């Protein structure tokens, strides 16, 4: 039971908590961010911070270890593949060159980047246009249309694969990268997230632009998009990763060559007549994950913010 006035002071937000040495017997200064009023004080607080670090370190290591082991295996010399040492020594890129001899990794990566990039861009564009319509206008059937888009999430791949394959054949797009991209251009996830973000967009800006006489198209590109950049970045990464990791649809379309990297990995796993070549398999799988990791690290903040502000509640 406390009549201490300190919690009320803390509640005023980061600015207040940032100032040290306030007159009141305040708990130790937090390092930024809103206070949790249920925090205990003093020694116990430090222990729980250390505890928090410990938990996260353990969990992080447990999550990352399989990936780490994959890269370690890919860098071992061929004779050392089955060694257990935590760090590969001597380092060897023979697994990578073996993998490259079997599947042209460079070309696979380039193809996959093209497919994932174009798919993500296409999905963002299509989704942006539709989300703009939902956010900026009230029109008949909008609710029905919205449900139609969200409903595609429920349609499983097994339902669409054969008819789409037949249609692609008639369009002459089989065995092309375009055939992998075109059917996926509307992403329910993209539309959902963009709509959430646009719902929170200040309508006064749109109104102001309209009063300036700008067309809706101009408004979209000069007013809305510049303000949506972080959300677009977050969504772009998620859509890129989704498309990068796609396997089943490329497996249907690309029959003549393993043009995307996921099919390249599968070509190693599938050889039933030989023992699994762990070195080249690890190398290919490792390379398949690398661009995605790099992209994520570069834009991590946006992804996290995208989750926080997407209104998942």
């Amino acid at each position: 039971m406390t009549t201490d006035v300190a919690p009320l002071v803390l509640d005023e937000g980061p600015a207040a908590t940032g100032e040290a040495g306030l007159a009141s017997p305040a708990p130790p200064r937090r390092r930024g961010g809103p206070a949790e009023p249920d925090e205990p004080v003093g020694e116990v607080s430090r222990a729980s911070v250390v505890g928090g670090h410990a938990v996260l370190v353990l969990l992080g290591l447990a999550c990352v270890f399989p990936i780490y082991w994959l890269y370690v295996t890919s860098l071992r010399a061929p004779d050392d593949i089955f060694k257990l040492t935590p760090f590969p020594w001597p380092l060897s890129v023979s697994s990578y060159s073996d993998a490259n001899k079997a599947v042209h990794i460079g070309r696979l990566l380039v193809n996959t980047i093209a497919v994932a990039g174009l798919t993500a861009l296409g999905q963002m564009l299509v989704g942006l246009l539709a989300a703009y319509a939902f956010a900026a206008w009230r029109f008949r059937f909008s609710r029905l249309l919205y449900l139609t888009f969200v409903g595609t999430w429920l349609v499983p791949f097994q339902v669409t694969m054969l008819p789409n394959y037949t249609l692609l054949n008639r369009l002459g797009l089989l065995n092309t990268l375009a055939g992998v991209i075109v059917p996926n251009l509307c992403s329910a996830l993209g539309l959902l997230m963009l709509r959430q973000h646009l719902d929170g967009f200040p309508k006064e800006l749109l109104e102001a632009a309209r009063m300036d006489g700008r067309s809706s198209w101009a408004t979209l590109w000069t007013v809305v998009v510049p303000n949506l950049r972080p959300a677009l970045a977050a969504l772009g990464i998620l859509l890129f990763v989704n498309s990068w990791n796609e396997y089943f649809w490329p497996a249907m379309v690309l029959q003549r060559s393993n043009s995307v990297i996921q099919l390249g990995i599968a070509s190693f796993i599938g050889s039933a007549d030989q023992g699994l070549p762990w070195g080249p398999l690890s190398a290919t799988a490792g390379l398949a994950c690398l661009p995605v990791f790099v992209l994520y690290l570069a834009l991590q903040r946006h992804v996290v913010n995208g989750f926080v502000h997407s209104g998942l509640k």
Partner: protein
Amino acid sequence: MKKLLSAAALAAAVALGVAACGSPGGSSSSTTASAAGAKPIPELSPDQKVTITFESYNFGLAGPWTETFNELLGKFKAKYPNITVIGQKPLGSSPNPASDAISSVQQQAAAGKAPDVDQQGFDALNFMVNSLGAKPLEDVVGKPAVDANFGGAHPFSPSVTTLANVKGKTYGVPFVLSTPILYYNKTLFTQAGLDPNKPPTTWDEVATDAAAIKAKTGKDGAYIDCLTKGSKDWCLQSLIRSNGGRVISTDGSKLSFADAPAVQAVTMAQGLVNSGSTPKLQQKPAYTEFAAGGMGMILETSAVQSVFQKGAKTGKWELGAAAEPAFGSQPVIPTSSGSALFMLSKDPAKQRAAWDLITFLTSDQAYDVISSKIGYVPLRPSLVDSAADLKPWADAHPLIQPNIAQLAKMEPWVAFPGDQFVQIRDGWMSAVESVVYQGKPAGPTLSAAQTTASALLPKG
């Protein structure tokens, strides 16, 4: 309420409009183009350009097969510059493309673009002929041409030529195959006090030797790679035939894999597992263990021989190969696992190009490459006696001898009839797997599987 109704009406209208593709189904009136007794198709003129597709489940896998195919296709292009061959792997997402081999042809046929030449397992023979439209080769190119291909300086083994025949007509040219071979670890034999140059010749001897290996060296004794859903039924058919039984009646109307001889064969394998000589493993872990030197014997296809040879070199143990063991004094009847090349094109020019490709891939020259690079036994066995062809290779690889010897006594891998042949086989093999590796009672389990499978046979 009105809004809901109008929304529903809109949805229905969209649905109807979108579904205006008519009712599904093909017309049963279109029969195969080549009627019996039709003239053979003409040869291609040298400047007549044709493009054909060749589908094989060996494409698209990182390994020696893709390289070998590319080499062969390169040689083909040099010989027939006016024919372009596009190689492709089966359509589908299974990691092992062989699982998709049949459905791939089906789906492409539905879209109107079945491959011109297709490499397909013998188990799909009935489906290829009756449903997928494989062409009877005698009708398309004439009997003399078919016989000429099977003959030549180094003819096919006679037992091989009829493997892809249905009702007397040749629908496929057998391409690569293997009979069941008992590979064994000579080093482990020596360590267990057995004579490495006298491998077991009957299943009773296998049981004894396996027990000895397990007791003296601690390594697993033997593994029969014929008894899981993944291994398919090709060599189990051989075990059953060798024990005097059949899997299905010769007219294809009645299943018999729950009859006494078949049940006995499965019980023999169950005994090996129960005594501890056979480990409870799936196919790939089992042959990987053998390759690593951890198993005494394995009944396997020679397609995996290169894996064993590599393993023996790394693990420093000696590999041996022997004929399939017998049930007591009954004769061994090996079956063939493997595939044939089928022709699916309807256009005469493509048919001719397809035939040129098929004859090329089954020529002496092609088998020289395939055998030496991949290790399959050549279906033209006399090539191994010819110094210009495979004699040097055969001398360097004495392990192929049992396979060559067994070629002569071989019987076909019987394909189940009807559109649901895969279900029949999978149901049966799952039952076998549960009997052998899970100890279920053989008789009742196999009978139940036979009853279920019988309902899947084509009616009439």
